[in-house]
């Protein structure tokens, strides 16, 4: 949805136009909205698999090796979540790869040599591995040895991390393309692979991989913490869920600060390689020295759509933007957005970035608070902390999505930076009717899917509580696993 609202902001063809009698969008707008919406849903499940993988491996290993009842309980719960999430990841992922061809055929043709290899490796190396060994992990307990069983969990987890690797090779190449030259094939200018190592390990690749994997770990740790906190809150003496909460807090203590430190350096790298995107992240219009806006609040509603310094109340470090971007010079020039002919929708990028970073600091605070309680041995006793963690459980996903909006929307108008624009990439044979039809279909079906995923999580939690012997009392009943918020699975 945010893609739609972004397009409103963009001033592009904003509202669904009345075209004749039917409600139709231009093929380009509809394709972009459709791609943005479907990938936003897909990434929720993909990140669930990536982030949950270490938990599954650990629980499986503990259960098989120690026969500890706590881990049996935790494993059986989270494997169910993993399995449901995996199926959803699969069914939402296949349309993703098709859309490269259906909606962005020019992109597939131009970049075929560069992205086809990695996508095919992803399928052959990662998807098969995950799918085959998940079958064993779910249905094969009685049919394989303990060792093969544990190994299956490791291979499933490895598959998830590997598929993240190959897809990010593709995406990072789109941000910092190299290792190719343009040639003519069948009358079309296309990229020819000249150096695979340069192309795969392009400057953005490792930044993106570390940041994304860690983001998935944070998001899932928050989800695990939230679910555990809820169950502990209902049943104080549940050893298993107390343990799960503890593990989640320990993981957050490492991953949350790491993400902020890494993200700070990552920002400098973006400035180096995509100055226009960096300027959009900082709403920096005039070339010259840049201040760093630590906090920014809109002083009037227009700042939500055009975040110029005049209509923002900011707490800024003067010239620190220059200092950071140049690595040490307070007077360094930073390119401003006015230098470019066409810019991404600045407001979306600017506010998304702030949202992500703000949440990043919130997670550090939550981790430290939990660490302190853990140290005092009162983690499961603090009502306030349990409630905070329940509320925070979907926020990791919110940060993950907004981070991707910074990356993808900030790259506009390019789909391959400085090489191919998004409008050139869109199908020329697609009609407005077809595009609108499928957009509506995907909005409805993927939206329903997210709701169903939330319901499944809720049912699993209710089952778990029933098994723990908690009576449902209408008085303190939460509606849904995550009260009030739903941007999560």
């Amino acid at each position: 949805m945010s893609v739609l609202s972004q397009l409103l902001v963009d001033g592009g063809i904003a509202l669904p136009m009345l075209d004749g009698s039917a409600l139709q969008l231009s093929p380009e707008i509809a394709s972009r909205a459709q791609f943005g919406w479907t990938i936003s849903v897909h990434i929720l499940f993909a990140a669930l698999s990536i982030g949950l993988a270490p938990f599954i491996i650990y629980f499986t290993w503990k259960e098989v090796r120690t026969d500890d009842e706590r881990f049996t309980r935790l494993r059986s719960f989270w494997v169910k979540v993993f399995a449901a999430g995996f199926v959803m990841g699969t069914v939402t992922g296949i349309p993703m790869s098709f859309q490269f061809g259906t909606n962005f055929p020019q992109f597939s043709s131009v970049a075929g040599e560069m992205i086809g290899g990695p996508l095919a490796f992803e399928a052959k190396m990662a998807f098969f591995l995950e799918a085959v060994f998940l079958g064993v992990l779910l249905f094969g307990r009685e049919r394989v040895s303990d060792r093969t069983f544990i190994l299956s969990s490791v291979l499933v987890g490895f598959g998830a991390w590997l598929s993240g690797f190959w897809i990010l090779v593709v995406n990072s190449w789109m941000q910092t393309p190299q290792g190719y030259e343009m040639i003519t094939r069948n009358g079309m200018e296309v990229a020819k692979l000249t150096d695979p190592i340069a192309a795969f390990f392009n400057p953005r690749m490792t930044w993106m991989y570390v940041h994304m994997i860690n983001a998935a770990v944070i998001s899932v740790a928050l989800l695990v913490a939230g679910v555990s906190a809820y169950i502990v809150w209902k049943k104080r003496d549940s050893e298993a869920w107390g343990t799960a909460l503890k593990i989640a807090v320990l993981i957050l203590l490492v991953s949350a600060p790491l993400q902020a430190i890494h993200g700070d350096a990552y920002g400098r790298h973006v400035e180096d390689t995509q100055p226009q995107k960096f300027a959009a992240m900082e709403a920096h219009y005039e070339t010259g020295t840049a201040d760093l806006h630590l906090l920014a609040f809109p002083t009037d509603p227009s700042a939500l759509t055009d975040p110029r310094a005049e209509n923002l109340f900011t707490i800024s470090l003067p010239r620190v933007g220059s200092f950071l971007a140049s690595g040490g010079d307070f007077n360094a020039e930073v390119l401003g957005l006015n230098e470019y002919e066409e810019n991404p929708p600045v407001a979306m990028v600017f506010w998304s970035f702030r949202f992500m970073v703000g949440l990043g600091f919130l997670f550090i605070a939550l981790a430290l608070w939990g660490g302190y309680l853990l140290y005092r041995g009162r983690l499961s006793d603090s009502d306030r902390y349990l409630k905070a963690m329940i509320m925070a459980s979907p926020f990791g996903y919110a940060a993950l999505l907004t981070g991707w909006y910074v990356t993808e929307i900030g790259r506009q108008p390019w789909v391959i930076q400085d090489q191919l624009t998004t409008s050139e990439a869109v199908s020329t044979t697609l009609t407005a009717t077809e595009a609108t039809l499928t957009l509506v279909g995907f909005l409805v079906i993927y939206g329903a899917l997210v709701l169903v995923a939330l319901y499944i999580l809720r049912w699993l939690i209710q089952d778990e509580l029933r098994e723990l012997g908690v009576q449902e009392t209408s008085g303190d009943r939460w509606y849904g696993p995550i009260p009030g918020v739903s941007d999560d699975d």
Partner: protein
Amino acid sequence: MTELLLPVDSYLVEPLPEIWFGLVMFALTMYIVLDGFDFGIGMLYATRDNDHDRETLLSAFGPVWDANEVWVIAFGTMTLAAFPDVYSRLLADHYLLALGFVLALLFRGLGPELREQRDDERWMRYCDYSFIGGSLFAPLLFGMIAGRWVFDAATLSAPTLLTGIGLVAVSVVTGAAFLAAKTGPALASEMRDYGIIATLAYLGGVVVLLATVVFTDAGGAADTILSIPAAVIVVLSVAAGLGGIVLAGRGEYRAWLASALALPVLLSALVALLLYPTIYPPTGLTVQDAVVSPLALNLTTVLGVPVLLLVLWYFKFLYGVFSGPIEGEGYGA
């Protein structure tokens, strides 16, 4: 650096583009064979009205469908890696069919997964509809895309529709044979009957399809169809089909399964025959025109082909773990 490892300006072996055409067709074959019987199970599921039988069908499907489905992704991404323009045109030119197909896969995959989440009559019924409908529409639409691709025919033309229906029928054949081989005698004999009907329908459909194509020369394919290799494929298909019916009648279900699986393999061979060398008939693009540059293809070969062999080994392992007959309770989660 790269030159040291891989030839940059020439293919590793001269016919590498043709080999990749073969590999892409191999992935297609794996897909219509393996996910084909999943679709068949899904459609035959509609004939079961008691819970015990339904559970049995679902447990035959459960551990393997996801891995089977990955072959369509392998097919797509291998096409993209070797023949990007074919991938672009194939999907862009069949926009609604292609997205309809992936949505059918979505419903097919979700149905069984969601079904077990709740013990509620109505919920389970909707999940069943999703499973059955997805299993019907996925092969239908996939077959229709193939029909339009191979015969350069309109969406609602006889060649397109017959290819779609053919794929549906052959999926029912393999699904029935698979279930007959995996389940108890009572279910097996019913599956045998459905399988026999579907085999006859399939063979009839193929004959009508080929006759139509010869008659109208759709996509200029008439000559190929009247050639010796095509005749061999057709004869073998008829032999496998009729032989299968005999084996099924005798209750030799494993042998029936083997002969049933030959049908989609032969179908895919026919598709390959029709697509070589003009891999995208609507624009006249040949394998040589469409293939990527040497370095890119060499790389996908060196990194990809060994992995493909490994994948085949995984499949052997997977089907090994879940071999043997299933009882109503499934494999035990």
